[in-house]
């Protein structure tokens, strides 16, 4: 096109602003820019310059207490775990450069799966490269076209993506609503395959599912049950097996999904099961087959950590104490919380709106406290939340310090 000619049917647009595939993100870009223009530190661009322990880091130049890392059991700096990783790095190298079904299954992967089978007292364990892929892979592989998946509306993104990938009929029900779940199961056509997907702990509000009742109803309608225990493994239940264990239904659950990125303290995901045909999944589950396996150092740290978590009852008890102390303290200060009583190691503080939530997040960071800012659309009912996840390594005094920070920041921002 020659310069200087403006065509009447084509309004002039500035360079770089013409419509393309990125135009769909314009609203989000504008919202982010608006937030940052107000002088706000970017909540989604925080850099940890130094990590001192499971509970402390240098963030943006400040010594900071970590209260939003899901490092529930504080295993990331456990000397045995770190040592196992170093040894594996020495002995097996930095990576496997291959899929689990080709050259990517090392002794360490087998040992990690052995540790999981022992931890859960189950027959089968399959390790994935992340928890996201574990949900994606298992759900999409077992529930295909014509099958029905009944799931909680507040399910994690990896669950939704697994449902979409498998092309099953997806039927959500209202969060933790047993009756709504039962109605949907009852209406599924005769003969169709059914999968119910639940989570032990829902990470947004830190509430747990009524698994005893829900699993019983699912079984009554002949559905298979998958429970994602990402936020309960290592902490909830006598042996740390999760809400399934606490509710006494672990033997009725067909699949448990979990992650190494929280209590275990490294990265990776898994599924454990007693299903007699479970092993076939290794050949047909695409997010397992078509990606490289975890590095030897990662599976070595995971296996060591999982074995130590089996004997973690003292740490579990201390973590409960921490959760109760923080929950009670915040409630006394006048904050609105996600649950009436503490149900997990997550305490969600409900903010009046996104602006004050972001301001509160920043005020806490300046006090030297990192919490997790969760905002719409990722949150239930479009709430803005400050999610606090406690660690077994937080001391009693640290929790008191944290409460002091919340008090000052809350008053400064005008929330309490």
């Amino acid at each position, binding site marked *: 096109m020659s310069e200087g000619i403006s065509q009447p049917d084509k309004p002039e647009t500035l360079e770089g602003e013409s419509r393309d595939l990125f135009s769909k993100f314009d609203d989000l870009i504008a919202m982010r820019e608006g937030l940052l223009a107000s002088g706000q530190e970017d909540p989604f661009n925080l850099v940890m310059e130094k990590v001192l322990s499971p509970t402390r880091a240098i963030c943006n130049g400040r010594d900071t207490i970590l209260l939003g890392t899901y490092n529930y059991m504080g295993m990331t700096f456990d000397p045995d775990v770190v040592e196992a990783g170093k040894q594996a790095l020495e002995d097996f190298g930095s990576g496997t450069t291959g899929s689990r079904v080709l050259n990517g299954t090392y002794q360490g992967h087998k040992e990690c799966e052995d540790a999981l089978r022992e931890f859960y007292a189950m027959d089968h364990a399959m390790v994935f490269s992340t928890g996201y892929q574990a949900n994606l892979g298992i759900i999409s592989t077992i529930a295909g076209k014509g099958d029905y998946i009944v799931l909680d509306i507040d399910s994690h993104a990896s669950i939704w993506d697994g449902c979409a990938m498998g092309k099953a*009929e997806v039927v959500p029900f209202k969060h933790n609503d047993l009756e709504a779940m039962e109605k949907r199961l009852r209406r599924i056509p005769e003969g169709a395959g059914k999968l119910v997907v639940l989570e032990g702990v829902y990470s947004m509000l830190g509430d747990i599912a009524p698994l005893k009742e829900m699993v019983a109803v699912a079984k009554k309608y002949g559905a298979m049950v998958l429970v994602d225990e990402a936020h309960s493994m290592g902490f909830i239940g006598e042996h740390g097996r999760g809400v399934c264990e606490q509710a006494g239904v672990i033997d009725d659950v067909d699949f448990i999904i979990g992650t190494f990125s929280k209590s275990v303290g490294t990265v990776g995901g898994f599924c454990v099961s007693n299903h007699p045909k479970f092993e076939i999944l290794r050949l047909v589950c695409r997010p397992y087959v078509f990606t490289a396996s975890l590095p030897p150092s990662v599976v070595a740290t995971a296996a060591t950590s999982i074995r130590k978590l089996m004997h973690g009852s003292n740490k579990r008890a201390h973590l409960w104490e921490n959760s109760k102390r923080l929950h009670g303290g915040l409630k006394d200060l006048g904050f609105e919380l996600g649950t009436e009583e503490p149900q997990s190691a997550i305490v969600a503080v409900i903010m009046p709106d996104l602006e004050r939530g972001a301001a509160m997040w920043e005020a806490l960071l300046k006090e030297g406290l990192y919490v997790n800012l969760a905002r719409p659309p990722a949150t239930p*009912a479009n709430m803005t939340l400050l999610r606090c996840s406690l660690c077994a390594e937080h001391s009693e005094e640290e929790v008191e310090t944290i409460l002091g920070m919340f008090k000052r920041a809350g008053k400064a921002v005008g929330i309490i």
Partner: protein
Amino acid sequence: MDRPETDQTIRRLIDPFNKKGVEITEATTFAGDLEFDSLTVMDFVAAIEDEFDVIISMNQQAEIETYGQLVGAVHKLQADR
């Protein structure tokens, strides 16, 4: 239930969700005209499912954009039962 009856029932069910009192025609869209967000969709769909004792999966919902399409889909679901 014939189509006009189904239409009448759904009109009654949509009322509490139609906060702005938008006039409902066959061409009224849920996302555009009625500005339903995902939570409203969930509650509205649950109300219809309970009334007619049917399942409208998310896959089916994805195909439904207008009020007329919804009435048609529910009418067919009932007939297939």
